[in-house]
Each structure stands twice: as C-alpha cells, then as structure tokens.
C-alpha cells in the first residue's frame, strides 16, 4: 500500500479509482471560479463538465504519440527489400490490420485501414498500461507531487490506464460514431439515411400501413444506432475497469503479511498473463467493430 499513514482498504481502492482532475472550482468553494487540481473525489465531481482528466489525457496522448513516432520512423525507412526487425514487426501489424479491413469492409475508403491501425495499436498500448503494477506510477507521481509541489500524496490521484476512464472510451467511440454518420450521409444522402431509420425492419406495400410503421421502425432503428457507440465504448471500459479493479484487489493482499503477499504475487502474475489476452482481444474487438460500423455506413441497399 502506498502512503505514509495507514489507509483503509476502501480508501486505497477509491484512491486508485480517482482521476487527476484539473478543472474550474464550482460556486461555494474557497477557490470558486479558479482552475486547479481537485483535492478529492467530491471536488472532482463538483467540477462537473468543466474539468479534464490530466492523467487520461497525458497517457493517451503519450502512448498515441509513441505509436505514431515508432511507426513513422519505420515508415520513413521502409524498404521493399529485406526488412529489419522493427520493420518486420510493424509490417506484421499493418498486414494483420489490412487483411482484417479487406475481409470486412466492402466499400472504398482509404481512410478506414489507417483508422483501424490507429485504433488497434493505440487501444492496445493504452490497455497495456494495465499490466503496470498498480502502485508504481501513481506512487511515483504522488512522491513527485509531495516533493516538488508540496501536496499531500493522498490527494494526488493518478490513473494510469486511460481505457478505465469512460471519457476516453466514449471519446473514441464518439469519433467513430461521427465518422459513420458522416459516411452514411455521404453515401446514402439525407433521404436514404432517414429512410434507413424509418422504413426498416417493418415495411408494407400498403401506404397506410407503411406510414403507421414509421414510428415503430424509428424507435427500433434509433436504439440500434445509439447502441453502437455505447456498446463499443462500454465494452472496452467495462473490461478494462474490471481488470484494473482485480489488480487493485490483488495489490491489497500485499498489506496482509508475508503469506498473503506471496500468494498475491502469484495471483498478480497469473492475472497479468491472462490479462495479456484480454487487452489484445479488446483492442482487436474495438478495431473490428469500428470496421463493421464503417461497413454498415457504406451499405446502401439494405434488404431485410
């Protein structure tokens, strides 16, 4: 357990589940109207929408930049001759993503494959942070906050895995959703898009019946439409949050003496090995579903 003074297990868990939140202090606070780091979960909550999770943004941007930097470096020196180790690795991923896109996406859009690659690698790297021992980075950040900014380490919150923050997964899913809407409009036009929402799955040759079906169809299709980004983001968030939670619970065992500590070590190892599968799978699912949604946006003549 981290910290100088003893924490309860609940406090420990809560501490690990709180993002470092930078935002505008609400009315009624000492620093009302000013921007600053929230000192506890209640303050962060009170900040409402006008706040940003520094840790989530930092890690997602850092990991995304790392991905792009590495791949760009390889892309700059990419030759058609015998590839080196790094190029081989990158090409393996690119080929994998490319074949996934080719087998699923039937339309013509050069944008889909790079997007799928970005999603796959980025989400994988973000998820990979989950394998970091849960106290390392938050502990280091707490120490730094204490040493350099004179903060109470118990009030320095730091979540390392952006995909355990629903903001991050919803943000990505939202971008994907916007793109699918955009291409849906582009491919089908406004009438086609509205028709897709209102004339399926129930339809009739009788004009009166057809009109009567429109509200029912709209409710069904609208729910289906909204369900896509929601399920996309919640699946990733839920899986990663649960995995992180188990790591935190295992980490609690280190405070329970030698035997529990050693047992906890084995538990952590086992869960981490199993988690390698989950993080890769979740990255793959996020990518594949994105491709599927893009493909659906491109399907113009739906015949149910």
């Amino acid at each position, binding site marked *: 357990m981290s910290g100088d003074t003893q924490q309860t297990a609940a406090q420990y868990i809560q501490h690990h589940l709180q993002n470092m939140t930078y935002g505008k202090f609400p009315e009624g606070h000492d620093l009302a109207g000013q921007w600053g780091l929230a000192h506890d979960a209640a303050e962060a909550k009170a900040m*409402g929408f006008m706040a940003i999770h520094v840790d989530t*943004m930092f890690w997602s941007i850092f990991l995304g930049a790392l991905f792009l930097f590495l791949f760009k470096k390889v892309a700059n020196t990419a030759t058609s001759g015998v590839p080196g180790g790094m190029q081989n690795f990158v090409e393996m991923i690119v080929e994998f993503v490319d074949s996934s896109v080719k087998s699923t996406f039937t339309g013509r859009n050069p944008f889909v494959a790079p*997007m799928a690659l*970005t999603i796959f690698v980025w989400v994988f790297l973000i998820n990979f942070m989950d394998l970091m021992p849960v106290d390392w980075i938050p502990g280091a950040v707490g120490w730094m906050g204490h040493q350099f900014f004179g903060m109470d380490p118990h009030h320095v919150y730091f979540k390392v895995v952006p995909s355990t923050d629903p903001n991050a997964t919803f943000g990505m899913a939202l*971008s994907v959703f916007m793109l699918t809407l955009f291409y849906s409009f582009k491919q089908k036009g406004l009438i086609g898009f509205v028709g897709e929402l209102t004339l399926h799955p129930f339809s009739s040759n009788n004009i009166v019946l057809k009109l009567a079906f429109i509200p029912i169809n709209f409710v069904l299709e609208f729910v289906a439409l909204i369900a896509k980004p929601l399920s996309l983001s919640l699946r990733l968030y839920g899986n990663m949050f649960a995995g992180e939670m188990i790591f935190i619970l295992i980490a609690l065992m280190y405070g329970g003496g030698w035997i529990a500590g050693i047992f906890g070590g084995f538990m952590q190892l086992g869960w981490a090995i199993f988690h390698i599968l989950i993080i890769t799978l979740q990255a793959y699912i996020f990518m594949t579903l994105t491709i599927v949604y893009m493909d659906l946006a491109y399907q113009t003549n739906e015949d149910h």
Partner: protein
Amino acid sequence: MNINLTLIGQSITFAVFVWFCYAYVWPPLVNALAERKKQISEGLAAAERGQHEQELAEKRAAEHLKEAKGQASEIIVQAQKRASEIVDEAKDDARTEADRIKIGADAEIAQEINRAREDLRQQVAILAIAGAEKILKQEVNAEAHASTLSALAEQL
C-alpha cells in the same frame, strides 16, 4: 467516473492521431509491402521461367546425347564393316598375289625343266654321237650323219 472535457479532448486526440496515421504512416508502409509483394511474385515467376528453361535445356541435351550415341554406334558399325572389308580385300589381294607368285614359280619351274631337258638332250646327243663314234670308229663321217643325228636328238 465523471464525464467532462476529457471526452472532447479524447475525441480530438483520436481524430488527430487517425489523420496523422492516414497521412504519414499508412501510405509508405503499405507501398513498401505492395512493392515487396510485386518483387517476390516477379522473382517467383523468374524462378519458374528459369526452371522451365532448365527443363528444356535438359531435354535438348538428352536429345543431343541420344543423337550422338546413335551416330557413334553407326560409325562403329561402319568402321567394323569397313574393317572386315579391308580384311577381305587384303585376303583377296594376298590370294591373287600368291596365285601370281605360284604361276611365276610354275613357269620358272617349267622353264628350268625345259632347260634341263634341252641340256640333257644335247648331252644325250653328244653321248650318242660319242657312242656311235666309238662303234663306227673309222667309218662314220660326222658331217655325213649330222642331219640324222640331229633328227634323232629332236625326237628325244
């Protein structure tokens, strides 16, 4: 768990990353892959062509070999024939030569016999004359009986 500006920040970050990947990372990698694929397929085609050519060459070589073998055996047969011909010719020549030599020898022998016979005849004539002279010591005139004696010698 709070939904806040991070949501929008993430969306923008995502869009920027995807755009960067689309613009700068994806094309060179895919181009390199496509280029390599092309090179490999060309290389494979070339290898196949080379193999095909090798097969053809082997076939041609085998044909040449077969032809050469045929020619060689033909030459051998001819040579053998020629050799036996030469042997036959030599035999014939030898036989004719032998015959010729034999005939020459025969003629010589006949000549020798004639000559010996001539000599003998003359000696016999001389002996006869000498004998007759002895018998007819006084009377016989050699000149008067010469024709008789030579006629006698002819008959011998």
